[in-house]
């Protein structure tokens, strides 16, 4: 009631809330996590933070694939009122770091030798101009197939070893009256499928050239056309209700046995686990089929804005330390479905899918076959990945030819350069 009174008074006087300035031990974090499992995982970090003497002040802005949060962040920076800590994915953090508004965590990195504890491929997203600006909590693998084991058994399908095999198995699934692939017409969900094909069919090196270096010859190559043609074969393997479907609803189709499989990152795992299904027993998780093993990643980091307040700086350090705490990483990822960002966290308590992800990551690092996900902003800057999404999304729902798709992709990328 006193709070309400104060707000009323402040409203009447046209003053900013007194509470705003008083948050001396409060650390405000802006993020996009709103689902139960996400929030549950986040609580691992905030609980740890509490033991370190700081209170997490939550600012969640969900929706629009993170655009709402990005908009909130931009307006707050414009207003000179940035959050103490911000969740970044992929290039988002780099952009702000280039503007010089993020606080350097170099001292902490040096003191705790965090650099050595992390996969080298992550560092490019954590560091700008020799300054570490954020700390990673997890790693999701993007290129997974999720399948209902009972359905696969009934249709007599083994785990496919190539995309052609995977697509061919669709006929068997159709024969037993099951939707072969659970998906949505949302562009990003289609793109998850596309980028898996892109790397699986053409190999990691080609993926790097086309999706990361944006090499024009690679982009306009026959390999690209081939990939689009492959994607075109998936048209019609979904059900009529795929329009506007959330990815989690698609996952549920697989879990319920209404659909055979889904191609999605390992955040989908939580849906099966929530139903009490067990990996390998009730559902299958396997990487998208390929001759050249690869690993595509997505991870969440938190960075702090430069704010002229010593207490907040201490709090930002505390957040970084909490995130990099191995125990926190373990507990967090057990809930979130991903694997720890740190390479040195014991994986014993994790499920088989996570264990597979962890071991595949180690192998991929060795083989130089680990790359960032295009869809989720770890391959190229948003203005380019957006073009991929536009073209792939449009290609899939219309009768656009693979050649036209490649042409508009090249034009679009050049236009955005």
């Amino acid at each position, binding site marked *: 009631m006193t709070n*309400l009174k104060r*707000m*009323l008074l*402040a*409203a*009447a006087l*046209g*003053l*900013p*809330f007194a509470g*705003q300035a008083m948050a001396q031990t409060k650390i*405000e974090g*802006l*993020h*996009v*996590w*709103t*689902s*139960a*499992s*996400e*929030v549950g995982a*986040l*609580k691992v970090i*905030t609980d740890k933070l509490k033991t370190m003497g700081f209170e*997490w*002040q*939550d*600012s*969640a*802005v*969900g*929706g*629009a*694939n*993170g655009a*709402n949060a990005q*908009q*909130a962040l*931009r*307006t*707050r920076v*414009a*207003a*000179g*009122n940035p*959050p103490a800590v911000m969740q970044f994915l992929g290039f988002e953090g780099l952009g702000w770091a280039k503007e010089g508004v993020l606080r350097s965590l170099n001292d902490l990195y040096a003191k705790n030798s965090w650099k050595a504890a992390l996969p080298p491929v992550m560092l490019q997203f954590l560091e700008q101009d020799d300054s570490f600006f954020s700390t990673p909590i997890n790693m999701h693998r993007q290129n997974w197939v999720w399948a209902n084991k009972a359905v696969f058994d009934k249709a007599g399908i083994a785990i496919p070893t190539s995309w052609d095999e995977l697509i061919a198995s669709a006929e068997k699934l159709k024969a037993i009256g099951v939707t072969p692939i659970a998906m949505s017409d949302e562009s990003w969900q289609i793109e998850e499928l596309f980028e898996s094909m892109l790397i699986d069919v053409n190999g990691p090196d080609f993926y790097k050239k086309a999706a990361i270096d944006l090499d024009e010859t690679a982009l306009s190559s026959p390999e690209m056309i081939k990939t689009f043609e492959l994607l075109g074969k998936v048209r019609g393997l979904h059900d009529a209700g795929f329009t506007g479907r*959330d*990815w*989690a*609803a698609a996952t*549920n189709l697989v879990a*319920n046995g*209404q659909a055979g499989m889904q191609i999605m990152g390992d*955040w989908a795992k*939580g*849906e099966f686990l*929530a139903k009490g299904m067990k990996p390998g027993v009730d559902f299958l998780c396997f990487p998208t089929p390929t001759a050249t093993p690869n690993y595509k990643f997505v991870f969440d980091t938190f960075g702090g804005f430069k704010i002229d307040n010593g207490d907040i700086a201490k709090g930002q350090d505390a957040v970084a330390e909490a995130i990099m705490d191995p125990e926190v990483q373990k507990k967090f990822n057990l809930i979130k479905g991903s694997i720890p960002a740190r390479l040195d966290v014991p994986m014993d308590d994790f499920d088989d899918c996570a264990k597979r992800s962890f071991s595949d990551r180690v192998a991929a690092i060795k083989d130089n076959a680990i790359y960032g996900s295009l869809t989720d902003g770890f391959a190229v800057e948003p203005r380019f990945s957006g073009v991929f999404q536009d073209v792939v999304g449009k290609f899939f729902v219309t009768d656009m030819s693979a050649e036209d798709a490649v042409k508009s992709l090249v034009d679009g990328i050049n236009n955005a350069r």
Partner: protein
Amino acid sequence: MATNAASLATSSTPLATNARSFRRQHRIGRAVIYGSLFFMAAFYLMPLWVMITTSVKHLDEIYAGSFIGLPQQISFDAWRTAWSEACNGTACKGLKPYFINSLLLTIPAVIMSTGIGAINGYVITKWRFPGSNVIFGLLLFGCFLPFQAVILPMAQTLGILGLAGSLPGLVLVHTVYGIAFTTLFFRNYFVSIPDELVRAAKIDGAGFIRIFVSIMLPAALPIIVVSCIWQFTQIWNDYLFGASFTAGENAPITVALNNIVNVSMGRKEYNVDMAAAMIAALPTLFVYVVAGRYFVRGLTAGAVKG
């Protein structure tokens, strides 16, 4: 009052046979009118039906594919969850605090924008001066501003004013962008009030403010209702400004609702979403259903010469 056209037609027909056929036509006509109205009403109620039934269904039932049908079991758990337990980020206090935020921001913003609109409309119609029409034109153009275009400069301005991220800041933004419409409402209404009223009051010795308070405002009650309803709906339902200019615990209900509904990665609780959506819509629904009568009446008063 509406004419009962059909009954007039019967009573003014002299011949009995004609009267009978007219009566039959009349009955058919009435049936067609009622039929189309009820059909449209059903169409209009459809989304509400979906929302209400979903909000009382069990989540498994929804995931099993029942989106539109009747619920097998009715449970109000989702409503309780939405009101007091649903999580907006790590804060799992339900919609309640944000509901209060929205009230705290909507009420002053509605009062201020309506008040300013009223006095602007009064000046523009009753105290014209050279250029007052141009000013009205300038104000009116603000109605059609795409708000996405002004978010960043507005954020910077609020930062300079020290109102960034606060409810008073949001109240200010809504008031500023509400002025265009409220001014238009009051201007169009006051135009229909004869200028002689103001002249009479001037001769009676009333000044600028006295005329406004004693004569114009009491006469403007219908349009005040219209303006308040319009502004209330617009501000309560706003998402863009709310998400841009508030943060965390200061967020209005639409932002909290969006966070509950728009899960980026994670299982959607459709029943809670729908219950939350209904809760977020209750005040505006209440305003329309309760004040709807006055709303139409207010519009009428604006259209008819006083």
